[in-house]
């Protein structure tokens, strides 16, 4: 690449193309990714109480709207007819409806009632929510999979029921959470001075025993970053079983990195590594390393553990609150600026030492809002929307995060490691509130980001 071309490319935004999509103010909505055009690539769909708005390619200028049938409970976007063109499927209390996903800029076709099905007992929520309703099993035609009458029923598009499996608390379950009936007496009474009072709860969700080629999502999410950091604050230093952990190998496995925040007033972390060593003639036994202290708080991975040097071992990401020389002057300036200095660092795993490197491989200083630092005293991170992923498609893991509500910065990796200067900083007109998706929308190896903002949605689409 010639120098001028590289310069233009950098000025245009090296990593992301940013788009902001407004939503109806004050109206509840749900956001989902879907294959809208049959290309296999991810588009964006926003459901409101009365309609679905599709953004093809997650682009705000490629839009089409589908009004929902009255009383829609849930919807799916999938190719039930297997004609190569996805349909929107809407389930109401008594019917399953279908309509082709419209072409951008065109009006939607009218809904076709596929068949009658009773879903009356399902609570209608504020917005129709995205739920997979189409099941594609290997070597078989696609079917609609709906729960009706306490059973999961599979239907052909013409409404012919092909199979039914029992679900619910009475059915055999692989996993269940909650209880079909709990009554707990409450004392002292709240309503009357001498009343008998109970709190009755019927909360239950589960995964029934189904054929292996019918995938069912778990009823519970894996622990979030906040939950893991909460566990790290409250774990018992003497009992490693109480320490939170993440996989030591980037591809999973049983080896683990255990971490704990010691209650000694510092922001250090204690880290132990549990590895399984193969020894000739002996059973493999997991061994736990001694605890090593690192200057900062371990940031647990959101999903896959980061591996910045692509050696197959997870690396350690730490944050620490720089403790400047505290004087009235420095603190006054801090309060006036409303920011606090924070440092992020990466320590690579060294298998020969069975420990993470003592010195950081990479580090960056940030100034985060004071409010975020206050929240970091609890279980949140002082930065927001931290993502470790390949944003530029070079096969190396990059780091992206927000150090201010309206901006997102990315540090890309090079063959020499993570760069110390940000590769890109995107400034938006709205505050980023929640990272909804970090996905490879174009299937090209580059991770794009979708946020909920205080005004709508923001898409940072990887170039």
């Amino acid at each position: 690449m010639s120098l001028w071309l590289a310069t233009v490319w950098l000025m245009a935004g090296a990593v992301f193309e940013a788009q902001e999509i407004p939503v109806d103010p004050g109206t509840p909505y749900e956001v989902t990714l879907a294959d809208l055009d049959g290309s296999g690539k991810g588009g964006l769909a926003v459901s409101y109480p009365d309609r679905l708005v599709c953004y093809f390619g997650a682009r705000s200028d490629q839009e089409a709207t589908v009004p929902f049938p009255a009383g829609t409970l849930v919807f799916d976007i999938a190719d039930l007819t297997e004609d190569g063109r996805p349909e929107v499927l809407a389930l109401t209390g008594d019917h399953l409806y279908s309509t082709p996903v419209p072409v951008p800029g065109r009006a939607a076709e009218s809904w076709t009632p596929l068949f009658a099905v009773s879903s009356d007992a399902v609570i209608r929520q504020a917005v129709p929510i995205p739920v997979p309703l189409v099941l594609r099993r290997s070597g078989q035609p696609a079917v609609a999979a709906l729960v009706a009458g306490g059973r999961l029923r599979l239907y052909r598009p013409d409404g012919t029921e092909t199979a039914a499996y029992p679900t619910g608390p009475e059915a055999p379950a692989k996993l269940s959470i909650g209880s079909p009936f709990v009554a707990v007496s409450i004392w002292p009474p709240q309503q009357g001075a001498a009343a008998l009072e109970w709190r009755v709860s019927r909360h239950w969700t589960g995964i029934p025993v189904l054929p292996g080629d019918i995938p069912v999502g778990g009823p519970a999410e894996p622990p979030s970053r906040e939950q893991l950091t909460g566990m790290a604050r409250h774990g018992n230093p003497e009992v490693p079983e109480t320490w939170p952990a993440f996989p030591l190998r980037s591809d999973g496995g049983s080896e683990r990195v255990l971490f704990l925040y010691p209650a000694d007033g510092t922001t250090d972390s204690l880290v132990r590594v549990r590895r399984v060593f193969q020894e000739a003639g002996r059973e493999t036994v997991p061994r736990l390393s001694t605890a090593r202290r690192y200057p900062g708080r371990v940031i647990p991975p959101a999903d896959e553990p980061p591996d910045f040097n692509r050696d197959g071992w997870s690396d350690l990401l730490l944050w620490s609150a720089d403790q400047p020389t505290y004087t009235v002057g420095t603190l006054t300036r801090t309060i006036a600026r409303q920011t606090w200095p924070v440092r992020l660092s990466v320590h690579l795993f060294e298998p020969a030492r069975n420990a993470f490197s003592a010195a950081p491989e990479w580090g960056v200083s940030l100034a985060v809002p004071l409010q975020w630092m206050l929240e970091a005293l609890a279980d949140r991170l002082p930065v927001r929307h931290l993502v470790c992923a390949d944003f530029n498609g070079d096969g190396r893991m990059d780091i992206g995060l927000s150090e201010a509500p309206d901006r997102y910065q990315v540090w890309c990796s090079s063959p020499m490691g993570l760069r110390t200067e940000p590769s890109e900083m995107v400034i938006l007109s709205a505050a980023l509130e929640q990272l909804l998706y970090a996905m490879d929308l174009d299937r090209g190896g580059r991770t794009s980001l979708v946020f909920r903002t205080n005004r709508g949605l923001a898409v940072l689409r990887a170039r």
Partner: protein
Amino acid sequence: MTRVGVGLMLGLAGVMAGMAEAGVLVEVPGLWAGFAAGPAARVTGNFSHADLNDDGRADLLLEREAWIRGAGPGWTRKIPLPGGAETDAYDVDREGVLWVISGNRLSGWRLAAAEDGWEPATDEVSVDEPVTGREPALDFGCARRRFLYDLDGDDQDDLVTVTPRGVCWHRRQGAGFDAAGRVLTPLPEPQAVYTARGTLWPPGQRALCLPGFRFSAEVSVGADAILLVHGEESAAGMRWTTLRYPIFREGHSVKTGEGTRDTGPPLPPDAVPVWLDRDAGRPGFARVYREPDSSGIPGEAFAVCEVWEPGETSSRVFRRPAPSGAALYPPLADINRDGRLDVVLMTVGLARRGPRERAQELLTGNRLQVEVSVWFRQAGGYPREPSWQDNRTVYLDAPPIRQPRMLEAAARGQLASLHGDFNGDGRADLLLRERLDQVACYLCDEGGCARQPVFTVEVSPGEAVVPADINGDGLADVVRVPEPGGGPARVYLTEGNPQ
């Protein structure tokens, strides 16, 4: 001394502490107490009271033992409860008979005359369904559950249970109960709900999402009616319905009339029913939350309590500055014991000053401010302005910049409470953790709280402090709840003084 007589004059081992009031400090192993979650301030715990030996004094019931009260504020002996390991729960009837439950079997026990054990008061009786239903597993053992209630007015406690069929009445028959329970009130059927959003793309991550159940209800059985309050999610918000079934008595029979249904307007999902007026026919609603600052000054958030009168669509909003990090105290409490829930907003934080003064305070300060604002509920609702306000100071064990342990206590909401009546005047008094190792009690009346403490109690740094009447004398005691694994709870038994 017999085995059961190892019950201790624990008070003798207690440490005297205090200023104006004398009290005794007693170790009570197995006791726990704390504030229940939600907007209504309510002390919960694993203790209850009943007069087991008919001496007119309330004895203490824990999960495995009964502690027999002596003439003084403390206890003379402790006795293991009958029933053994199979016991699910127990309750005590109006005659002091302790009923032990195991599944659908009940057995009644009376305290022996020597107060050193239990004698069977009845033969074992069975009913058709398990009495307690399924309950969450308890860590310690069995616990008291209230299921004995004189529903037919014959001065004998009947067995009242809640099962999946509904509220059931088992009439007392001599030494036992009717085996078959009569359903007085059915429970609404739970509706299915999709609890998780599904993934539609990429194809490899598509997995079916199956609906689960999500239903909660509060059931209240009173002398005149059975009330059932439950919420249903709707597109517009949470709709709460109050079902009222009047109770009719004919001789020794009880039946309920047709239920009346009162469905309120849609409310935010975090608003929960609260009984603003005791014995009211339907509940109001409340929620507590922290509102982000709009002032631009970091940390200047607000604690907000929002209250809906029964049937009202608009709410009354109570708001006070409350920095992030400090816990929100449950703001609804009947602090003047008039049967109405007052609003008490207690906030903890640094003094609100300019940046330089705030920096100085962070660096060298040693205090936090506790602000108390009280709105007494009256017949027509709440007054516009607070009935009284107060400011108190708590002292940190280190400057804020060094993250003293008192800040952690503030974050957990353990610095102050306006809940326990320590002198028996019918009004809640202020219990304030003034230092990491000391709490002080200030008597309060309709106009505010005294400036001088009526007593102080030394506490350990890791202990939480909860006001609760442990010895059943009608006066709040100070419960020192240790950290998990931190030894037994200690109770500072107050002896009361109308002064």
